[in-house]
């Protein structure tokens, strides 16, 4: 049974705006929730390398190729950082990865959509990383120290990714008619998944008071979504592209955009595993893991031999 006094102290600390650190006492529900969130986030980073990696070998010029390589490398780095941050809660990376491979753990639904043209690389940076930043700047204010600090650092890099994505879209939108069509097509395909990736609307995802009080969750999905839309719609207009939502309107009274109905059935289907790329993404990860097993075994065996030699010496 959790010590009631410790719980009071824990909550008081959070209420005072202090961070919870790995060795501090924490309720089991808090630990579990954070492991779930952080590992999902880490999985999203590494699964997200696949749709973007898909275009590295075909990038249209050397500058874009270099930028994309650097970006995907950043995503891998975020994954590594987040797995390490999750490990401070007493779970190791191998265990977390096996949850990913068996389908027990989830990752962001957005990466279950395919990248079909070069413009998709622009759309991912602009929309997907743009939406992620909205979410992550909120998470940076969260109560768990390692996660919060990871978010601060990750958001800085994501801002670059977001700008480079928008710059790709701007270049295409100002390019030849074919390029502009490519950009609009990418926006059409990625808009709704990006809007949905911020999570179910509040009536479908009630925020527990407890998670709010523990500063694990800080704002509702709909509030974050509104901020993303308010920021992104004018960006689309500025480069002459149109968001694929006929009901999108600016509301003078509230100062916010109102959007059309979101197809949550699609969202929940993709979460369940029935998106265009769920099977492929998971297969790629599982195969990489399987094919890498002998490499990891060799590294372990070599390290053991080296340790033994040092002992003898």
């Amino acid at each position, binding site marked *: 049974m959790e010590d009631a006094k410790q719980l009071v102290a824990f909550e008081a600390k959070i209420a005072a705006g202090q961070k919870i650190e790995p060795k501090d006492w924490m309720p089991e529900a808090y630990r579990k929730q954070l492991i779930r969130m952080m590992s999902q986030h880490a999985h999203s980073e590494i699964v997200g390398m696949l749709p973007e990696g898909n275009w590295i070998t075909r990038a249209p010029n050397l500058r874009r190729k270099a930028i994309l390589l650097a970006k*995907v490398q950043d995503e891998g780095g975020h994954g590594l950082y987040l797995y390490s941050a999750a490990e401070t809660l007493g779970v190791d990376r191998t265990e977390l990865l096996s949850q990913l491979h068996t389908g027990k753990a989830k990752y962001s639904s957005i990466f279950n959509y395919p990248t079909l043209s*070069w413009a998709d690389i622009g759309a991912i940076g602009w929309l997907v990383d743009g939406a992620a930043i909205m979410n992550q700047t909120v998470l940076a204010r969260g109560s768990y120290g390692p996660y919060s600090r990871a978010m601060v650092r990750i958001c800085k890099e994501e801002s670059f990714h977001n700008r480079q994505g928008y710059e790709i879209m701007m*270049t295409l939108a100002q390019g*030849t008619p074919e390029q502009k069509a490519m950009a609009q097509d990418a926006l059409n395909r990625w808009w709704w998944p990006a809007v949905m990736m911020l999570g179910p609307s509040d009536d479908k995802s009630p925020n527990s008071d407890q998670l709010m009080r523990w500063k694990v969750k800080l704002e509702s999905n709909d509030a974050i979504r509104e901020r993303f839309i308010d920021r992104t719609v004018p960006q689309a207009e500025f480069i002459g592209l149109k968001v694929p939502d006929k009901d999108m309107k600016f509301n003078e009274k509230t100062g916010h955009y109102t959007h059309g109905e979101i197809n949550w059935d699609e969202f929940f289907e993709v979460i369940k595993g029935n998106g265009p790329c769920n099977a492929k993404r998971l297969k*790629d990860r599982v195969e990489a893991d399987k*094919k890498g097993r*002998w490499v990891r*075994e*060799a590294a372990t065996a070599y390290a053991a031999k080296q340790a033994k030699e040092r002992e003898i010496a």
Partner: protein
Amino acid sequence: MNIQEAKFQYLLRLGDSSLIIGHRLSEWCGHGPILEEDIALINIALDFVGNATSLLAYAGQTEGKGRDEDALAYLRDEREFRNLLITEQPNGDFASTMARQFLFDTYMFFLYEELKNSKDETVAAIAVKSHKEITYHLRHATEWMLRLGDGTTESHERLQSGLNDLWMFTSEMFDMDEVDAMLIKEGFAPDLNKVKTAWEKRVKEVIAEATLQIPTSTFKQKGSKEGKHTEYLGFLLAEMQYVHREYPGAKW
């Protein structure tokens, strides 16, 4: 052949090798044996692409026909590429990739050490920057040679087999022709015999420490200096160049 043409050819040889091996490494993205390697392989690919960009840009300037680095990377055909054959070989398994990287990185390490002294200021500057990067690449590949060579029976066999398959492509790294002769005289490029001696010594040492055998095959496949490639390059270029070629003149 005049000196300008020789320089152009030489810069293509260097730049194309980096471009193509960088492409091969980038194919690993998201499929590495462990997350740290995914990151390392992309990072190394990025260094190669950066190095290729500098060299091809300079090649274009040297040629003086208005071709920039993208025109050279995206609008030449197979027969016009001058990369070493070893750089275009498919990744195979992780052991094969590491064998390829080790053999090529060792070559590049000693070659660029010499190029740092080139009388051509641009080449020397590129070499100084790249040599710092290649020092890390070589350390990375060497560590894997040791881990895989002296790891498990399976890793040992896989690595030995990778080395055996690639060995025939190593000798052309040190071949010299008219281009080299002209540029050695100019102080633009080094004598590859010197690079060869250093390469052989280092490769032998690492192979021995990794408990592996120097491959016994004596067949030497060459051709890159005349743009005679293996069948793999055409597919690689088809993939690399198609978007660029699909929209002629478009800005990206």
